[in-house]
């Protein structure tokens, strides 16, 4: 110190450096930061794409027998006018078809979903009294991107030689569906291509006219038998209850066959005489799903003929980890493997967003690490390996802070969040580089000997403080307006303006606190020709 007056700290940079330089808690702080980052990294929900708040819905109004022109005038136009009154709607799409009118509304991106749905219900319900006659009750279907977009689809099919019938396969899958729904964070599961069991009565038209019957008669005959009535309670004289009831007339498909339809010339005509009656599947449902797979699902084998499949879709709750949900589902299926094997049920995972999300996130994490190593190597050559270690340490610390802040503010880890990190990576080592470069310069300058190590570090940090603050602030300012970009793209890119400023701010604080601290531990003043030993001893302490 000697003759020179003590350096006066001017900037926050210097104050931070001074405050933490000899503080024993600095090391603890560093470890805590890294630990928080680790917690965030492992528990944060992972997704491939960021969540975009798309809200909207459809109002479906059926009017049997109406032509598109009628539907347009009676349903679509008044409904559109009413819905137009709702605030926050960007577009209204009306469709007038035969028998039905549909009005879709799309809210502006970013509108609160619950609010939007409520507003839609509210508007339709308020105007129920204005509904025209002969129109069925309107159906309101808000769409929900989290619940509606499945993260997993599973194709179930019957293996060759399986004895299961189509409906039995569906029954088995329904059991699995029940179990999957019980898994934590699973939201909506649906089946596609599932056929229900049904008794089909196929009337032969020729016989119909031969026996002089009408379809209405057949309908009435079946309906009159297919009634289910609750049991009746009869009371005995001494006040006890005796329960009795009519048994269901139709218990099996045989009972349907034996329904008497009419009397023709004195002899009864049974349903089996005029129609083919069988227990089958709902044949009027043409929404089949086919699967074309390779033999043994091996990519080297050739394709087999198309077989019917039942697709089970699994969606997750909003804000939960797609990776975990998908993994749980897969484990659940593994448990049933032997059961499937026995019954000849095969399955293929035809969509797995969990895996995709994990892959995308891991790939980017990998990129992040490679980038950090490359920058560290570059610094070894430019500044020396001790300096390089110091700068390299600051990177995980900054990322840890940013990640943790993202975690507690309810963001998910997705491609864009990680891109925000990759983007900021080049920027956030800057503060540390500038500080370490100045420390380096000061250590090698000619008046280094006259100052103590601490004083020198604080001075070096403080000196570059002001311009670094301004420059970092300038970059933060370029990012802030991006948060106000609207539309899909704005929502999609939102993690960038949310995270980059945080990372940059963290980079400043970390650079001012940890760079001088680590420099004190790792760096030594270069030995000049007329150095004093006293100084070196002091550094070691």
């Amino acid at each position: 110190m000697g003759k020179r007056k003590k350096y006066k700290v001017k900037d926050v940079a210097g104050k931070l450096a001074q405050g933490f330089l000899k503080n024993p808690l600095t090391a603890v702080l560093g470890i805590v930061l890294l630990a928080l980052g680790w917690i965030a990294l492992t528990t944060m929900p992972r997704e491939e794409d960021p969540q975009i708040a798309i809200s909207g819905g459809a109002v479906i109004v059926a009017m049997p027998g109406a032509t598109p022109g009628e539907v347009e005038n009676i349903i679509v136009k008044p409904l559109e006018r009413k819905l137009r009154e709702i605030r926050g709607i960007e577009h209204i799409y009306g469709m007038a078809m035969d028998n039905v009118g549909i009005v879709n509304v799309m809210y502006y991106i970013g509108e609160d979903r619950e609010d939007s749905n409520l507003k839609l219900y509210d508007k339709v319900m308020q105007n129920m009294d204005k509904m025209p006659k002969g129109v069925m009750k309107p159906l309101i279907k808000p769409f929900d991107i989290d619940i509606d977009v499945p993260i997993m689809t599973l194709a179930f099919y019957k293996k060759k030689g399986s004895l299961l019938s189509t409906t039995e396969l569906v029954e088995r899958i329904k059991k699995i569906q029940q179990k999957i729904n019980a898994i934590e964070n699973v939201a909506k599961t649906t089946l596609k291509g599932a056929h229900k069991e049904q008794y089909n009565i196929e009337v032969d038209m020729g016989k119909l006219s031969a026996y002089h019957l009408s379809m209405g008669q057949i309908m009435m005959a079946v309906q009159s038998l297919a009634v289910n009535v609750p049991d009746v309670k009869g009371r005995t004289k001494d006040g006890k209850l005796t329960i009795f009831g009519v048994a269901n007339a139709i218990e099996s498909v045989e009972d349907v066959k034996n329904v008497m339809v009419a009397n023709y010339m004195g002899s009864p005509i049974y349903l089996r005489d005029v129609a083919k009656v069988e227990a089958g599947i709902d044949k009027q449902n043409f929404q089949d799903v086919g699967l074309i797979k390779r033999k043994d699902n091996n990519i080297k084998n050739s394709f087999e003929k198309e077989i019917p499949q039942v697709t089970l879709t699994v969606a997750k709750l909003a804000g939960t980890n797609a990776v975990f949900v998908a993994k749980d589902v897969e484990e659940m299926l593994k448990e049933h493997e032997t059961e499937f094997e026995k019954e000849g049920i095969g399955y293929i995972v035809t969509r797995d967003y969990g895996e995709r999300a994990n892959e995308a996130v891991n790939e980017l994490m990998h990129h992040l690490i490679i980038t950090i190593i490359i920058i560290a190597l570059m610094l070894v050559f430019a500044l020396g390996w001790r300096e390089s270690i110091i700068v390299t340490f600051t990177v995980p610390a900054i990322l840890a802070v940013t990640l943790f802040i993202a975690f507690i503010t309810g963001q998910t880890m997705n491609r864009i969040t990680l891109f925000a990190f990759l983007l900021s990576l080049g920027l956030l080592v800057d503060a540390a580089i500038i500080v370490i470069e100045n420390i380096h310069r000061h250590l090698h300058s000619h008046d280094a000997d006259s100052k103590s190590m601490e004083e020198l570090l604080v001075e070096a940090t403080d000196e570059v403080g002001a311009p670094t603050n301004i420059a970092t602030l300038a970059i933060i300012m370029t990012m802030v307006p991006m948060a106000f970009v609207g539309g899909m793209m704005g929502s999609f890119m939102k993690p960038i303006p949310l995270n980059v400023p945080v990372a940059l701010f963290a980079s400043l604080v970390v650079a001012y606190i940890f760079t001088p601290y680590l420099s004190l531990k790792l760096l030594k003043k270069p030995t000049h020709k007329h150095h004093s030993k006293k100084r070196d001893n002091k550094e070691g302490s």
Partner: protein
Amino acid sequence: MSGFARFIYNIINSRFKKTLVILLTAVAFFASLMMFPTKLVLAKMLPGKSDNTYSIYVDTPTGSSIEQTRKVTKCIDNILMKEKEIKNISVFYAQGIPLDYAGLVKGASMKRTENVAEISVNLTDKHTRDEPSFLMTQRLRPIIDKKCSNIVKGTNIKLIEQPSGPPTLASIVVEVQGDNIKESRKLAVEVANILSKTDGLVDVDVMADEIYDKYKLIPNIDKIARSGLSIKQVNNILYLSFEGMIIATKNSENHSDQIPIFLVLSDKTKRLSNSSKDAIRSKLTSLNLMNQRGMMVPLTEVVDIKKVKSEPMIMHKDLKRSINVIAETDMVSQVYPLLDAREKMIEHFSKNYIVEKAGFSTYMFDLYLTNKKTGEKFLLRWDGEMKVTLDTFRDLGAAFIAALVLIFFLLVIYYKSFSISGIILIGSFLSLIGVIVGHWVADQVTQQTFFLTATSLIGFIALMGISSRNSLLLVDFAMSLMAEHGMEKKEAIAVATATRAKPIMLTAVAIILGSALLASDPIFGGLGVALISGTVAAVFVSLLFVPVLMDNAKAINGDKFEDTLIDQEHPNDISITR
């Protein structure tokens, strides 16, 4: 003075060399801007990304049966089954595939008619596959179109890629708005024809129902009343016979659902011999209705059969009648085909219509048509990805201007001088040269077209901050040299440039290396390239151009810095601790 310092000193000492530097920079700037109109650099919102899946949408004309649709999908399946990289194929008849991001806006969940089908194709892992999914669809598209779209006339087949960014209805959407539906439909078809003739556009589709022949059974009210029947009965019997109805249900303990009992005419007997009026009549004669008196009345007695045209669906957008014509781009930016098609449309429609162009807004491509004879007005509105792109670019542009203003104010607060702040701002703005040239180079290097995208713009905005930091450190250091060491201005600038060159280079290299892996990503490639090339340009600008400007600026002198040093302490503290 070091070698580099002497080099800088030489430049700023000579008026000629200074002018030369400014001139060269200006030339570079305008030359790079010229790359847009000359189409050396193409703009697009987001490029495609390779994925492990894609889907195929099949639309046979409205009114087609599921059998016809199945024939088309069968044909597509046969083509797909020859592909080596396909793992499995799922075909969803009369419905959409389980909802995905593309289907969300393309209305996949609304599909439930017999004339639609969607095919979901799963590919092998993209890391081990040579051919990206977007090249595969590009290759298969013409083959499928040629072989399968003629099986049922009027079939539309679309190959849908997963969107790399936010999903849109289609790359190009032309909304034909007008009250006269017939005329609008005609216009829509003409628009579709022009679009399909435009290079680079594929999967053109008019999103309207086709008009097909159908038969109407007109109930003879008089006869119905006299026979003791009701129209409802007539309707029911027809529906019951041909479509079938669930007439009762049976509860069961052994099944998870009730078992419905379904009544219909048998498939063999209800099939019509052909779709003529007589065939229908002969079928209907065997259908009887029972009246209140228990007498049988043949259905044909009480109805007349008439051939009519089907009435297509009427679509509204924002309360106006509108028909959408959509098209996808085939590996090209949607901007250029759009401009081509629009030119052709203006030419085509000006025969029968008065064509007016729209004013400057994000709907700037719109065309207003007025029929020369009838005076009816129509609007051709360009929507879809193009609109989203324009909106995004407009918003990003506004964000960019806001960023410029914010930085400028920040610098003015710090330096208390407009000219210094201006120098720093100009210096950072010039990194645009690097961004544009960088995209051109990237386009030359990569196989596919490398577009200037929305993410490139984000990169450029971020660059503004980064390169202003370079100039900032430079100006700061030069001023402190003058103030503390009493150096002469030119010398101080030269020394400052040389001393600051190392950290400027270091941070630049850090950014370049940090963004190197970004550049290979499909979506963020633009951002990566913008950062890399922009940073290179920024280094040149701040080490050559900025010193020249600094020398010219009167505001840079020692005294000023002394003042500011004392003054700036305070506001700066506040701004950073907040």
